[in-house]
């Protein structure tokens, strides 16, 4: 049987390469065509407003009249604005306490659900249902549940002899109240962690049990490392959400729940940004505030990504 051999760069090799390139180009073109609606949407409704807000942050802009370029004045003003410092402090406080608590409660509930057996389906739905509650309703719910006189929380506390605080008016207790009510929507994280738990290979537990490992050892040596990817996802997403927290606090302390009463302890950064932009019509200043928040979130996310290399395990990842 005759065989032919071609050296590299021979005509047939070149035409095969060309055909491959044409095919790839066609595929790329088709792919771009299919995603172009999203790209256009992203450019028009996300990228352009972001870029434009960067420009607005350098202007004095009242929404109606033309923006007037003022350089870095808005950023300078932020440094001198005590309410920016207060709002940042409130936001950091909320984030530092809320995110770990949120992840721990999610994990605890997911572990319980994992062991729930046949009733897991019911509890999965039960845990997820509160997530469907509109955040505005959660804000109003906060005022009812945490009412210092007749709220359910203080009533329950009184059963064990604790005289509950004035959650909704005492500045010391306003943020803890908001942190606790944020656990209302823990359901989605529970579902994600439960899915991750169900993906942990059973053989690992079997081997550990043969080696005499107890529940705690199995949890810390197998479960947590194996679901660390999902936990990291929840951690990072909730950190970003915590920095941007708005609706529940605004409803309870600045909006429908209290049209005139407010509490400095609940003045989160995005609430102050909203006030500046949409109530006081200082849209240039609000844009500068938005860019500062963007930078803060970016720095924290980058830090978390760096730390994730040390603590997060992805199946199939080579180290």
């Amino acid at each position, binding site marked *: 049987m005759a065989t032919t051999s071609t050296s590299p760069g021979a005509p047939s090799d070149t035409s095969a390469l060309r055909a491959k390139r044409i095919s790839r*180009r066609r595929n*790329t*073109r088709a792919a*771009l065509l299919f995603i*172009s609606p999203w*790209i*256009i949407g*992203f*450019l*028009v409704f996300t*990228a*352009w407003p972001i870029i*434009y807000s960067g420009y*607005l942050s350098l202007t004095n*802009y*009242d*929404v*109606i*009249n*033309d*923006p007037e370029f003022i350089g870095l004045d808005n950023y300078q003003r932020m440094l001198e604005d005590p309410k920016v410092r207060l709002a940042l402090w409130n936001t950091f406080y909320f984030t530092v306490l809320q995110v770990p608590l949120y992840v721990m409660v999610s994990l605890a509930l997911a572990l319980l659900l994992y062991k729930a057996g046949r009733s897991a389906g019911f509890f999965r739905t039960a845990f997820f249902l509160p997530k469907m509650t509109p955040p505005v309703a959660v804000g109003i719910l906060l*005022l*009812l549940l945490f*009412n*210092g*006189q*007749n*709220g359910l929380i203080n009533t329950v506390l009184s059963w064990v002899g604790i005289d509950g605080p*004035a959650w*909704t*008016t*005492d*500045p010391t207790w306003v943020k803890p109240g908001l942190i606790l009510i944020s656990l209302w929507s823990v359901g989605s994280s529970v579902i994600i962690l439960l899915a991750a738990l169900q993906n942990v290979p059973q053989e690992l537990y079997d081997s550990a049990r043969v080696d005499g490992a107890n529940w705690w050892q199995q949890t810390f040596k197998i479960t947590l490392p194996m679901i660390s990817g999902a936990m990291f996802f929840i951690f990072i997403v909730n950190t970003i959400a915590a920095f941007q927290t708005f609706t529940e606090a605004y409803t309870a302390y600045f909006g429908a729940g209290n*049209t*005139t*009463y*407010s*509490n*400095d*302890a609940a003045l989160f950064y995005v609430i102050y940004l909203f*006030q500046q932009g*949409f*109530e*006081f*019509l200082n849209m240039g200043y609000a844009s500068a505030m938005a860019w500062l928040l963007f930078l803060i979130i970016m720095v924290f996310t980058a830090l978390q990504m760096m730390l994730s290399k040390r603590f997060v395990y992805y199946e199939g990842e080579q180290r």
Partner: protein
Amino acid sequence: MRPAPVRWLVLVTAAGLTLAACASGTSNDNSTDTDESDDNAAESGSAFDPEAELEGELSIMGFGMGDEIAQVRYDEAVSVVDPVEVSVAEGELDIQQFLSSVATNDPPDLIRPNRDQIGTFASRGAIIPLDECVDGEGIDTSMFREAAIGQVTFEGQLYAIPEFNQVQITMANSELLDEAGLTLDDVDGSSWEAIEAATEAMHQKDGGKLSVIGFDSKLPEFLPLWARANDVALLSDDGRTAQLDDPKVVEALEWAVGIYDMQDGFGTVKAVRDSADFFGNGNQFASGELGAMPMEQWYVNVLNDVSPDAPLAFSTVKSRTGETIAYSSGSAWAIPAGSANPEAACRFIKTMTATESWMKAAEARAEARAEDDKPFTGLLTGNAVADEQIYDAFVEPSGDEKWDAAIEATYEANEHTVSLPANPADAQFKTAWQDAVNRVLNGQQEPQAAMEQAQEEAQAALDEAWAAWDED
């Protein structure tokens, strides 16, 4: 040559940015458009003529037809501007939506904001002066209440026509008053010492917890009322100078906060207040959880509807020298800059606020109340002539002394209203003093320090806003 994906990305990016630029509502071109619109509106002043034929469309923002008072006047106004096609985006005026529409030169033709927003809108050129509208359509502004007109007049020009009016009256639980051996005179504000004594006498605790609020001074919202009772306003008459750290304002705040301190502090009082069914038959008066408070007159209708047999007593709010006082607030009608049909808008406003329209609306309301076997408690408008005629024609003794007293107090308060002047930084001004009051209520600051900080914040905002206006 660039690879194909890059070429595509560049193309899509360029297309996106071009589209975005086209969609931009804040480009420099916009100013020209807005200016042109202003000019058009101004030029169209000659067409403000009650005999002129109208045409086109009229879009309205900030109005709702929730009851017969709105519906009857709306129907009347629609028939007057016929054949103009009227459309309403029902609901409260969304400020962001409205200002964005002005910025993109696509505003509604007519809006119904709160009167305290007029200074902010006027100073930014978002609404047009109504002088030509008033002259052309022959609107008699002398029939409107002075306080209401003051709120919609900015730098000497009228920017809106007042619609409804709200005032405050004293509301009390007569049984709690009787039990404590008190009368309405003890809680109407004429003597702050008497209110303190009444608070002490009427508030009750159950198991160490506050169960009955003796007197609610309704902070933070009613600081302007208590300041006025102490013979001082929060803002100077020209709207340029904050007076928040005036000793009389601080004194009023200290006293009003002291009322809460006598009842375990604001947090406790607010918790009791928040747990009440404010709009239901478990309201604080019906359940005997509140001795007395000042409140807007619309709450009389709520109480009459949900707890007609509750032990209630009503009077006006009085200053420390014994005169009836009330703060006036309410809605108004204004024409946005760039309105495509200011002539129709003007005639619509005229009809909505005319005495005849109010009379027809009041008649419909009185009939509806009679059908439900309930008393007609009157109708407060910015139009003093309409108020008087409505009172004469439709308000009758109900046979129940307390409701008649409520109506009398309401109408008397309406004759003694004051208001804060229009200013270009109303939102910041209000936030500054309300935040200060809240800091005191939350125990974060003393009244003097809080009002000094508020004064600084409010004056800075006023100075900046007035400087921008004066420059223009």
